[in-house]
């Protein structure tokens, strides 16, 4: 009995999201027909969702723990620029395509760890620390790139790897799938995930139970930074260039997807499945608008409406859940 209710709650909450996604698909089919409901288009939707998707997974961890990371978009930009400088490109030509990948991941990870150190050990509020990182990372990216786009040339193996389509699906979509699966596993099945939820639910109680909350916080922002690095790799593969404007406002899309997905902004409850659904809802929405040649301003309004409706729906489901469970 208790087993059932433990499963019912999340299922109900997910129900609203699935419903929203299905509705969008119905609208897409009704207005776009074949143009929407084709393998090609659906793969496009997923490819465009990959960057936000990967970054949102990292964001889910930070938000579940009661934090926030505003810097992910800027870090994506910085990582993309750093991984596409001429120096990196030469090194990649000499040693292999992985140099680009490692550079992007390292930049993301280090930026994340700096955030984490500031929040955990410097006791700077997460909002402030990551806002500062947002400004600094974007500025540094502009300096490095000199405000120019850095096209990646002569590193063909990089594109061979990342623009390939194993089983007919682009590698970058696979990356999203793998990151989401790993994130789900980490959050739901490991001690790391349990600590994350505990710290978000009651930091003082967690500390007094012997959880090293500072170190854990450091890791969490590290994860967010790392996923930003992965996001940068995906962007490089998709656009074949690094740019200091990559990832602009990405943090807001990520936060929106996470919160719409059902992760509590106050911490203590997180869901990767919800985040993935949130990401898919937003990217499907964009796609439907683009296919119908609708104005992007209207799209922004629709986005805003979806955020509000999704959160309202969730509260409604949460209230239902209270009635049906325990």
């Amino acid at each position, binding site marked *: 009995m208790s087993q059932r209710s433990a499963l019912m709650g999340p299922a109900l909450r997910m129900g609203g999201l699935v419903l929203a996604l299905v509705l969008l698909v119905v609208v897409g089919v009704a207005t776009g027909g074949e143009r929407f409901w084709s393998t090609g288009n659906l793969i496009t939707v997923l490819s465009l969702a990959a960057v936000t998707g990967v970054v949102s997974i990292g964001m889910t961890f930070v938000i579940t723990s009661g934090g926030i990371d505003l810097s992910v978009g800027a870090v994506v930009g910085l990582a993309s620029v750093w991984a596409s400088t001429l120096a990196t490109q030469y090194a990649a030509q000499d040693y292999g395509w992985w140099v680009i990948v490692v550079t992007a991941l390292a930049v993301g990870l280090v930026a994340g760890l700096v955030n984490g150190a500031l929040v955990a050990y410097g006791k700077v509020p997460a909002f402030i620390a990551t806002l500062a990182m947002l400004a600094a990372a974007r500025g540094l990216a502009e300096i490095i790139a000199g405000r120019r786009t850095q096209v990646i040339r002569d590193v063909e193996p990089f594109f061979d790897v990342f623009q390939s389509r194993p089983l007919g699906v682009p590698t970058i979509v696979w990356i999203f799938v793998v990151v989401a699966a790993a994130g789900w596993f980490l959050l739901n099945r490991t001690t790391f995930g349990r600590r994350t*939820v505990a710290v978000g*639910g009651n930091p003082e109680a967690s500390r007094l139970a012997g959880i090293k909350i500072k170190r854990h916080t450091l890791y969490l922002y590290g994860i967010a930074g790392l996923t930003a690095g992965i996001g940068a790799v995906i962007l490089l593969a998709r656009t074949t260039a690094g740019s200091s404007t990559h990832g602009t406002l990405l943090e807001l899309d990520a936060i929106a997807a996470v919160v719409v997905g059902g992760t509590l902004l106050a911490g203590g409850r997180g869901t990767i499945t919800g985040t993935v659904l949130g990401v898919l809802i937003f990217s499907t929405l964009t796609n439907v608008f683009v296919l119908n040649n609708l104005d992007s301003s209207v799209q922004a309004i629709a986005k805003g409406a979806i955020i509000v409706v999704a959160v309202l729906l969730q509260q409604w489901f949460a209230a239902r859940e209270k009635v049906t469970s325990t």
Partner: protein
Amino acid sequence: MVDADPQPTESPAPQRAERTAQQPFLEMRGIVKEFPGARALDGVDLEVRPGEVHCLLGQNGAGKSTLIKTLAGAHQPTSGEILIDGEPVTISDPVAALRLGIATIYQELDVVDGLTVAENIYLGHELASGGVTRRAEAARNTRKLLERLGHTEITPHREVGSLSAAGKQIVSLARALSRDARVVIMDEPSAVLDSEEVGNLHRIVRELTADGVAVVYISHRLEEIRQLGDRITVLKDGRTVAESLVVADTPTDDLIKLMTGRAVEYAFPDRPGVAEDAAPVLEVEDLALGGVFSDVSLTVRAGEIVGLAGLVGSGRSEILETIYGARRATSGTVRVGGKRLRGGVDAAVAAGIGLCPEERKSQGLLLDEPVYRNITLSTFARTARAGLLDEKAERAAAREQVEALDLRPASVERHARTLSGGNQQKALLARWLVHGCRVLLLDEPTRGVDVGARAEIYTLIRRLADDGAAVIVVSSEIPEVLGLADRVLVISDGKAVHEGPAGEIDEHAVLDLVMEGSVA
């Protein structure tokens, strides 16, 4: 507005008190309250007369807090009737309750940490002219209220977050008093107070009742109910099993039987005595925390229970927290099994120390997580294999403790938030039982725990000690410290003023020591 019509307040008090003898001020008839999947109240009757102290008695989870929450407008009863002065009323929200003259002090502290004392007291009925708060007046009134409560050291502009649990309790009490209520409901107000403050509280209660105000008083301390109460209503499993018993005519044993359905051994477990050669497990040397306590040295051997007695604010909780590493000592050392402890809480936990904190809600529990995850919060990493959680093992370990402690309801899946106060306390204790500590630091381990379970917890603590743990117990109830511990340390004003075997000192002597120190 219509149903929450305030009663005329001009009627002179004596006249009201006279009328009261025949007519109850408040009646509750057949109150039922259903939560999803749980029937917390299943037909409760209660009748309160003006000027009386009406005690509510019942085991943990019997429904006392739920009942008073329906009175305070925090919950809506599923069915049943509430009458005030014989008129049926609907108490739709807390504001309506206050308008009807019902003020409530909740069991769980409900003060806002970020606000000052005065702001907390006037929260929701701010003194204001045209939206601008009258701070000076609020501060003046607050000072008066606190004076009446005997706590001049709490100043109106102090931030509430900086107060101890007991200090916060005082603020809640002051807030209820600021309301000029006709009935004041107190849900386990004495649980966090030391004996001196309990005396203060009782004086206030008597002053209130002398003015014709009724007091509904919930407590698990039966001696207290004997001293203070006029009539008693006993709840069991959400039902009234005895209504309005006259305290003077009802023996304690009968009350316990009514509450628990059985006779409870109301005694402390035997002290087997600590072997002379038992190894010291915990050694604390010259520990100090700037401005709070200094020169605290104590050694606890395997199998020994040391009790810390002292007033609230004497530094006893802080001593535990500093040993535990939750506060950074300004000087001194802590050794466990001969090894010096360095670092914070995690080092202490790794060395086998466990702490049951004083404030279970803010310091202990993950309220929106299931009970088993609360119980395994310090051990889930240990049961895990290579970082992978073993929830099956966690549930099994939790279930075992839930049974051992008779936690009710006996489900490990429920969220901690839905447990009654006493059961939350048991869940917290269970955490360290699962952990299997070498050193157990217990801050008010029986706070809010009912008579039956209390005896069980005493037995359990003793058993842990017998199994070789070193235990330190802090309690506001001096008899508890003296009955449970092998050795007592009396703390006054941050200094140990006495140390000796528990059997060689009595309650009055401890009280004297405690007071003496506090005068100095």
